[in-house]
Structure formats: C-alpha cells, structure tokens
C-alpha cells in the first residue's frame, strides 16, 4: 500500500511539472499567433493599438507576462477574456463548462454502455447475423461525421416527429438528449469494436477453455472473463476521449445552441483571446493528466500482472 501512495505522490509531482510545461509551450506558441486580440483591429490606428496593449498588459515582455499570468493562476485569477469587455475568464469558463461536461459525461456513459452491449453481442455470436448487424451499426456510426449525425437527429426527432426540442438549453433534460446522442456515436463505435476484438481473443484463450471445462455458464464466462479483460484496453482509449468530450464540441454545441466551452475555445484561438486559450488549455490538460493517472491506477487494480510504472524498483 505504501508503494501505491509513493507512486501516486510521485505521479502527482510529475503532473504539476507536465502542466507547467504545457502552459509554457502554449504561452510561447500563442505569442506567435498572427494579429492582435482586438476584433476590429482592421480599424485600429497604431497609437490605438499601443493604448489597448498597455491596458491589457500585452506590451510587457514575454517572460514577464508569463510570470504575471502564472502568479494570477496561483491566486485563482485566470485573467480577463478579450472577446468580451471585462469578463473574467474564470466566470466565462465556469458558466460554459457545466453544459459541456454534462453532455460529455452523458454521451460517454450512454455511448460506452451501448458500445459494450453491441461489442459483447457481436463477440458472443461471432460471424452471425447479429454480429454483422451490430458491427455494421458501429462502423456506420464511425463513418458518419457527428455534425451530419446531429443535423439528422435534429431533423428526425425534433422537426419531423416533434418529440424533442430543436435546440436551445432551456428545457432541462430533454434539451440534452439529442446532443448527447450526437456525441455518443464515437465512444459507442470505438467501444463496440474494441470489446468485440478483445472478447473474441479472450474467449479463445486457454483459461476460458478451462472455465468452460469446469462447466461455468457461457454468460458467466462472457462477463467475468471476457468483458473484464476486454475492458482494459478500452480504458486507455476512453479515458482521454472522455476528457475530449467533456471539453466540448464546436459543431454539436453550435447546432444545438448550447452554451458550452468547445465553441468558445475554437473562437478564442481564432480571435487571439490569449487568456481564454490558456484557461481552457490548462483545464483540459489538468483533466487529461488526471484521467491518465486514474487509468494507470485502475490498470493495476483490474489486472495485477501489470505493475504500475515505477512500482518495480
């Protein structure tokens, strides 16, 4: 157990270093983005630009700005968004991340469950009609871009059938259904394919043969031996994907008029909204490294043969 604590403490320290590096690289790259963060810069005179840069602290040298920014972060101050006048980035992010996270988690849970079911059905009835059907739906799910899928969902369920709201974020759970579905096809398809491959492999392995020989039911074999082992590689893939989904999708958010963070992030990059770019990047990478750590820890728990890195020595 002390090994684990040591390992986690070490990893936490690495996490901070990783985050620092990410922040430095992003800050540096961002510095070279073309143009200024002012949306009507076409009309700003050079003197005006100077005044604006002075006001937003952009005339200071690069190193100083980075230190100022980081000292702000430590105090919980993410700076002021330049797309809006005087709106703190922390406010913008905290308002926008909720809907994105909710949709991301819902899509992840729904997509993974459906994917696992499809994959399991495929694997248990390998090369049957059911397998073909399940595989095909996963493949089609993966080959249609999610913006096409979103528009189709909107057309079918909201416009033609009128079951669900067309868009907008004001109808509680029912406004989340269509965007969740649109987002869930990627985890669904990935989960289905992975589970199918892994399970087929596991179900053909010697220890499963042994379990069969011992007279265990196929269902028990499938769940206890098949699924559990198949979940391992899935975790590696789904962990980072969850973070990706939770930080929003430009297209789906736009199509369903959701006040999410994905659209805001792309816009902040295209408009040089430096503090928002940094804010989203930091949140995203913090979530990412945390999820990766959790996945690594889970690994050791699910499969004791895998020794967590560093635990060896």
């Amino acid at each position, binding site marked *: 157990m002390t090994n684990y604590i040591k390992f986690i403490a070490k990893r936490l320290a690495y996490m901070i270093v990783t985050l620092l590096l990410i922040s430095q690289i992003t800050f540096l790259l961002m510095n070279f*983005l*073309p*143009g200024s963060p*002012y*949306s*009507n*810069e*076409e*009309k*700003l*005179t*050079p*003197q*005006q630009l100077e*005044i*604006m840069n*002075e*006001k*937003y602290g952009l005339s200071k040298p690069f190193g100083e700005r980075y230190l100022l920014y980081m000292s702000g972060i430590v105090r919980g101050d993410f700076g002021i968004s330049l*797309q*809006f*006048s*005087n*709106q703190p980035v922390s*406010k*913008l992010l905290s*308002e926008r991340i*909720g*809907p994105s*996270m909710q949709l991301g*988690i*819902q899509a992840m*849970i729904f997509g993974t469950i459906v994917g696992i079911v499809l994959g399991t059905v495929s694997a248990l009835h390998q090369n049957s009609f059911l397998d073909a059907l399940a595989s095909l739906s996963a493949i089609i799910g993966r080959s249609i871009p999610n913006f096409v899928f979103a*528009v189709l969902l*909107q057309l079918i369920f*909201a*416009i033609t059938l009128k079951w669900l*709201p*067309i*868009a*907008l*974020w*004001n109808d*509680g*759970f029912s406004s*989340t259904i269509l965007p969740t579905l649109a987002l869930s096809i990627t985890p669904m398809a990935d989960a289905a394919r992975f589970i199918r491959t892994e399970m087929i492999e596991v179900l053909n392995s010697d220890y499963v043969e042994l379990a069969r020989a011992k007279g265990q039911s196929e269902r028990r074999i499938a769940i*206890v031996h098949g699924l*559990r082992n198949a*979940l391992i590689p899935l975790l590696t893939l789904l962990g980072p994907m969850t973070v990706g989904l939770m930080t929003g999708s430009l297209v789906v958010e*736009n*199509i*369903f*008029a959701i*006040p999410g963070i994905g*659209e805001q992030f792309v816009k902040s990059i*295209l*408009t*040089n909204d430096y503090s928002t770019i940094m804010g989203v990047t930091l949140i995203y990478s913090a979530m990412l490294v945390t999820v990766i750590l959790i996945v690594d820890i889970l690994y050791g*728990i*699910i499969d004791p043969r895998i020794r967590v890195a560093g635990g060896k020595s």
Partner: protein
Amino acid sequence: MKTNWKLGLLLLILVLGTVLSGCGSNKTAESSNTKSNNSTASETNAGKEAETTPQEPQILNWIIVSELPTADSVKSYDTLSSSQIEIFAEGLYKIDGNNKTVPVLATGDPVISEDGLTYSIKLRDGLKWPNGDPLTAKDFVFAWQRLFNPATAAQNASTHFNIKNAQAINEGKKAAEELGIEAVSDTELKITLEYPDTYFTASLSSVNLYPQNEAFVTEKGEAYGTNSENTLGNGPFILKDWDGTGLNWSFIKNEQYWDKDNIKLDKINIQVVKEIGTGINLYESGAVDVASLSGEYISQYTNNPEYLSVLTLTASNLELGISSNKALQNENFRKAISLVINRDELVNNVLIDGSNPLTGIVPKGIAVNPDTGTDFSDEAGAIVVTDVEEGKRLWELAKKELGTDKVKLELITSDTDTAKKTSQYLQSQLETNLSGVTIELSNVPTKVRFEKMMSYKFDLALGGWTGDFDPVSYLNLFFSTYEHNHARYKDETYDALITKIKTEDATDPQTRWKDLQEAQKYILSKAVVTPLYQGASNYLVKSKVKGIVTHNLGTPLEITRAYIEQNSAK
C-alpha cells in the same frame, strides 16, 4: 471476493460519474426554472393561449448569431453590440428608414457655426434615466470624455477623432476636460470639432456617443456594462437577465422613456444561435420570430414573402499587392483583371445573398449629393465594367510589356463561406479569360489574412472595408501613407486630391462632393483595386411582426418600434 471489490470500485466510479452528471442536470434545471420567465418556448405557448384575448402581451422572440461582447456603449465596436445597445440606450440622433439623420434626444438639427467647427444642440426637457435620475447634457460630456480616456481603451475611439482634442486626449497628451464638448446648460450642448465635417451630425447617431450616467458608471467602475445589473441605458427598453457571457437575455419596456407611448412591445427575448440552419429550424417551428440567413440558405428563401435583405456598407474588393508583386505593377494587367470579372454573375449566380455588384469604391447608401440628393454611387454610375474582349486585349499588351506570358498569383481570403465561394469564382474567371494566369487559393483564418495584408506582402487578397458616414473613409484607403493602403500605392495627384478633400473642401460641400467623385474616378482609372460587391444582411422575419426599420448606415435592423400584429379579428 478479491475481484469483487475491484469491480465494485469500477462501479463506484461509474456511479460517481452519473451522480456528477446528475448534479449538472439538476443545476441547469434549476437555472432554467428561475429563468423560465424568459424561456422562448414557454413564451410562445403563453402567446398562443392568449391569442383569443384582445390584450395579448407584445413579445418578440429574436435571435442573433453571436454573443454580446459588451453593453458599455463607449466600448462597443461591432455591429452586434451596437444593435443591442440601441435597444436599451439612445443618443442625440438616429438614422431613420431612409438613411436620414433624425433627432431623438435632441430637439432638432444642430446649429452649426459659420466655420463649421461649432455645433450647438438642444436636448429634450425632462429626460430621465430608468432609475429616476435626470438625464442632462453633463451625461454626454461624461460619456464622451470617457470614450477618449486612454484608461478606457475604447476600440472605436479613433472613429471620432474629428472632435476637438479627442486624439490628443486618447494619446494621453491632453486632459479629458479639454475635449471639445461642453454642457452649456442641463439641456444644451456645445461641441467643437478639430476640422469641419459635413457628416458629423450623422456620426452623432453612433452608440459610442450615447450619454452615460456618471454616478452609476463611476460606482460600477470596471464592471460597468458587464452584465444587466451593471448596465444603465436610457432607451426604449431595459436590458434584463444578461449575465455577460450567456446565450440569452431579454429587454423589457422602459417606463421612463420619453417616447414610451410609441413603444408597443412589452418584451424582447434574445437568443444567440450560431448555426444558421438551427436558427431557421427554430424559425420554422415558430419558436422565434426572426432568423438570420447566410450562404446557401439565402437562395432557398429569396422568393419567400418573409425574406428581408438589407444592403450593408461593406465594400468587398479584390485587393492587389502592387508593391510586392512586379506583374501587378503593370497597369494593363490590373485593368485586365478588373475587366474580365463579371460582377453580376458573381452576385446573382454564385453568392445569391442579396449583395449588389460594386462598380465603384464607395458603396450605395452612404451619402447623398448635398444639392440634388442623389446617392453617391448612383451619381458615379458604373465606373468599373465587364468587357472580356478588352480585358484579353490588355492582357496581351501586358504580357508584352512584362516580357512573360505566365503569371502565377496567390489569392488570400478569409475562410468564410462567402469568401471561399468568391475566391473560387474569381479563380475560374481569371484563369479561363486570361490564359497564362494561374491563381492559387489560400483560404485562411481572418487573422492570418489580415496579418499578410498588413505586412504588405501578398499578390491578391479578398478584402472588405466598412467606412463610416463619409465617402472619404473609403477613398482614403489609397492615400499613400495610410496604414491600410495595403497595395502601398503611391500617387501624388491622388494624395493631393484627398488632402484637399480633407482640408480645403471641408466648408464647401458641393466642391467637396465633386472632388470625392473625381478622386474615385481617378483611382479607378489606375485600376489600383478591383471592386467586387456590396454585402447584404439577410433575414427571415415573421409576417406578423410589423414596424421593423431597416437602414444601411449603422445596424441593419431596428426593432424598438416593432409590434406583433394582433389577429384576434379572425
């Protein structure tokens, strides 16, 4: 047993995830409950139920395509925030449906001194802020001084540098008190200009020059205009439920407004919908009363009676990088480029978005002849024409002069739908009509395009320019030292003409007008730029919504006087 707790842990994580998401949805459910008063869906339902009763509440459900960056009139710099600020605030003058400047808070036209430098304007009596404070001339002085104060860093300040000492104050060289505006009394303003400007009265309709309540703004400090509680306007409506970054807010009728009897709407709900298709779907379902149209959607609705198209003052040009490309320094080549482009086909068959072919530098709707009242572009006529044969002939000449028969040019454009379409059309026109010309397209994000244009190193670029009130703001683009002269074109005759327009002509409107026309003709004769089209904003507006005013100057639509037609007679 051992395995079970591990599985249990997995389950726990899943459950935690669900609970977390549950929290998320609870939260939004709550917030949607608290905001249910302004949720569009419930509103429409309420509207439908009330249809039978004669006193249906007048509610307009409006959508716009982007968030409101600021509600501070001084800091506003884009059409979108102007369009919102106009709903809850008002200035001395405004532009009416005929592009004429009409007094609003002022009682009549300004009294202008002989030299054109001093404007005296009387305000209406008894004007009030929604919080009961009287609205006086001092509120204008405060707002204007704030506009030029470098600490405010207002992006649009330079547009109004025609006011005396404005530029010096903005650059920190003079104190704000030296600005050329003075409150003679509570209801009288005296404005001094740096130089005479025929279009100054029109520019007084700009939201940047609206009054601000000193006590309120000072109290809120930096937070002024960042949400509805921290904003105070003087217009027909009051801004409500705007949290500063959100996608929906609303306006309710202002009972303190001087002309409130002519305001029929009780409430306007605004919803931001960025995807055009979604906006149209909401519109067709009846959830909203307006939809913005763009791109391919427009051609589908041009025959619809609810379709509304308003020309904007954005001139889209094919800009030529004369200083950085040798071939473009050949005048015959430049003329050939302009001659082989069919603007009518571009506008009617490619863009199909209500835009107009642009045959000069100054677009339609900006200014009229001081004597005859004819529009600037109408009077100029079609200066730029399409003549493919002549273009080909000039291209042959150019090839000889250049000593080459192959020219490769890169065309830089933004990555918007319109820009992509236009650039592909231009590419095909130039390549098929001028054999030997190869056009390479670069559709890049706007910032990248702008960076390349401002470094003055490009071949061709698709540029747009929106001037303000005065035709010279378009013609100035080719003044040799102006930083937005992307071509770095230098012509002493032209520079002299523009300088004359800006200085000597200022007090003589008729000569100035003639010189403006002359300047446009002169610069186009050198084919320094290839005008393409004048853009348009396109909408669908429900036929039951009446009283919407459209204008080319400023924001395209004014909805404050709109009302919903009662069809209780049915």
